[in-house]
């Protein structure tokens, strides 16, 4: 009798322990499963991101790359990468990176659009020696320089700022660190093309307005009418722009363009080509150049202007420009820069009220200052035209590569 009871007791306890152990084991297993699931999902996601980065880099190196990858082994998982052109007219591409890791899948979609220099609020190859961005400077849109980026007392950059070289502080990071409201990257190489202006000429031949064999072309935008002449005292010839330049390109080959007081209605690029040694390929701003509808007060304004010079874009030292100048355009100088004529000897000329962007090879001066304020030339009042993030003047030079405009993960 006592032996049987002992057996029941032992069997009973064994059963209880088995149930408890099974319960604890299940909890442990589910706990580990939980970790493993999270790890697998995270790894699959990281593989998909890596795939997107690999494809983006391939496209950066070769903009025509669209081969993708099929079942590529990567980090213990597998990758499928597709590159599709989702909009042939605008050349919008999409990378689809799908990853599989131990049964968990993840995908990343990246949309890329051709990148134009017109998106920059400020771009330079050479910063003109040792010019510092100071606490008086605010750049409202994307910024890039191929040179060192020199900061003195917290300049402000509202758009993404990039430099090919590096950020230099005047004293220390604590005293000089810029405010980057749109991010910052160093080591970004984005050279200015040497054929950006030349590449526009075929468009001028096709559906634009082209001037050849003229030393100087005086141009006035009068809404839909373009007035031009070839010497200062000649009478203007007026043409209807939508008819003579349906693609919006106005091109003066081997010439100088002088833009008179203008009101631009529509989207145009005015281009001057020519060798810097012959003094051609320059554009002079003799007076204000503004849109027919200012986008800051007319949100539906579609007016855009590109002022594109092979060499310099200069504000003329004349009476009209001695009391402020208003410029609404994206300015591109392939070999030179944007500056003011006689910047160090002209009278104090008020402000440059620029709405647009400046893309230049070399940073130029627009005035001089002393301890009591401006000593000659202009003060800068530059505002970025935010529409340039999504639109560009006709045939504005491109960077030759794509930029990421949307990233879904």
């Amino acid at each position, binding site marked *: 009798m006592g032996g049987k009871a002992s057996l029941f*007791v032992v069997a009973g*306890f064994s059963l*209880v322990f088995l149930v*408890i152990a099974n*319960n*604890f084991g299940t*909890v*442990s297993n*589910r*706990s580990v499963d*939980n*970790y493993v*699931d*999270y790890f697998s*999902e995270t790894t699959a996601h990281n593989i998909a991101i890596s795939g997107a980065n690999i494809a983006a880099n391939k496209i950066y190196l070769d903009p025509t790359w669209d081969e993708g990858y099929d079942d590529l082994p990567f980090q213990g998982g597998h990758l499928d990468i597709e590159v599709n052109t989702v909009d042939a007219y605008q050349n919008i591409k999409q990378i689809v990176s799908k990853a599989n890791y131990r049964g968990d899948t993840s995908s990343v979609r990246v*949309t890329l*659009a051709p990148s134009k220099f017109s*998106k920059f609020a400020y771009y330079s190859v050479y910063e003109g020696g040792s010019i510092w961005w100071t606490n008086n400077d605010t750049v409202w849109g*994307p910024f890039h320089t191929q040179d060192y980026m020199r900061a003195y007392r917290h300049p402000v950059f*509202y*758009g*993404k*700022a990039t430099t090919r070289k590096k950020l230099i502080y005047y004293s220390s*990071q604590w005293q000089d*660190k810029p*405010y*980057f*409201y*749109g*991010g*910052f*990257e160093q080591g970004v190489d984005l050279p200015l093309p040497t054929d950006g202006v030349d590449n526009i000429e075929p468009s001028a031949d096709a559906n634009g307005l082209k001037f050849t064999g003229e030393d100087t072309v005086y141009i006035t935008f009068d809404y839909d009418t373009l007035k031009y002449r070839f010497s200062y005292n000649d009478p203007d010839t007026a043409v209807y722009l939508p008819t003579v330049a349906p693609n919006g390109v106005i091109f003066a080959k081997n010439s100088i363009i002088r833009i008179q007081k203008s009101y631009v209605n529509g989207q145009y690029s005015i281009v001057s080509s020519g060798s810097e040694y012959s003094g051609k390929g320059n554009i002079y701003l003799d007076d204000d150049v503004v849109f027919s509808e200012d986008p800051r007060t007319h949100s539906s304004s579609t007016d855009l202007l590109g002022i594109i010079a092979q060499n310099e874009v200069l504000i003329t030292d004349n009476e009209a420009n001695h009391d402020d100048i208003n410029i609404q355009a994206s300015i591109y100088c392939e070999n030179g820069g944007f500056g003011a004529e006689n910047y160090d000897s002209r009278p104090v000329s008020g402000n440059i009220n620029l709405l647009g962007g400046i893309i230049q090879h070399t940073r130029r001066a627009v005035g001089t200052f002393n301890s009591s304020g401006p000593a000659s030339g202009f003060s800068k009042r530059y505002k970025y035209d*935010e529409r340039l*993030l*999504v639109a560009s003047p006709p045939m504005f030079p491109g960077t030759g590569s794509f*930029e*990421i*405009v*949307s*990233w*879904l*993960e």
Partner: protein
Amino acid sequence: MGFSTIIDILGSIIIGGILMTIAWRLSDAATEKTYNNSGELALQQNLATVAQIIEWDFRKIGYCADWNKLPDPTKAILYADTSAIKFLTDVDADGNLDSIYYYLGPTSELLETENPRDKILYRVENDETPAPSNLGITRFYMVYFDALGDSIHLPVANYGLIASIEINVVVENVAAYDEKYSSAYWRQIRMVARNLKNR
């Protein structure tokens, strides 16, 4: 009934009592352990769920299928504080901009749970009614970093400064055996919403 029989009965009572005491303590300990282990499992699952939801949403800060509707990613973050953040995104990837607002409610909202520290994490999509989730969150706080990797002092003067986010979540059991609450901690050291770096 002889003396040996009395000894047998007394011995049986003593041994039986010991066994019953063991069984009773075993039951109590097993209940506690089962409760705690199950609680920790639930806690861990809650934490993983919270982490996945937060990662899913935060990775899409500044995303829009129609990228022309949000060309300037510096404007994607609308509000940022220690335990609250509001940002623009495209929840359904339908090309329409949405806003998502995360914030942590006060402890006084959750008096019905035994844990005195847990709070409701709210997720508000556009102007919809806040969607509460009671997953035992006791702490949800963020640290913001600028483009150079330095932490940004609060309150954030300009939300465009934010380049990456450290997200911290602490989860505890909503109820525990003898009020011995377990906790689990998740930290995303640098959450970089890729769209903030576009353009």
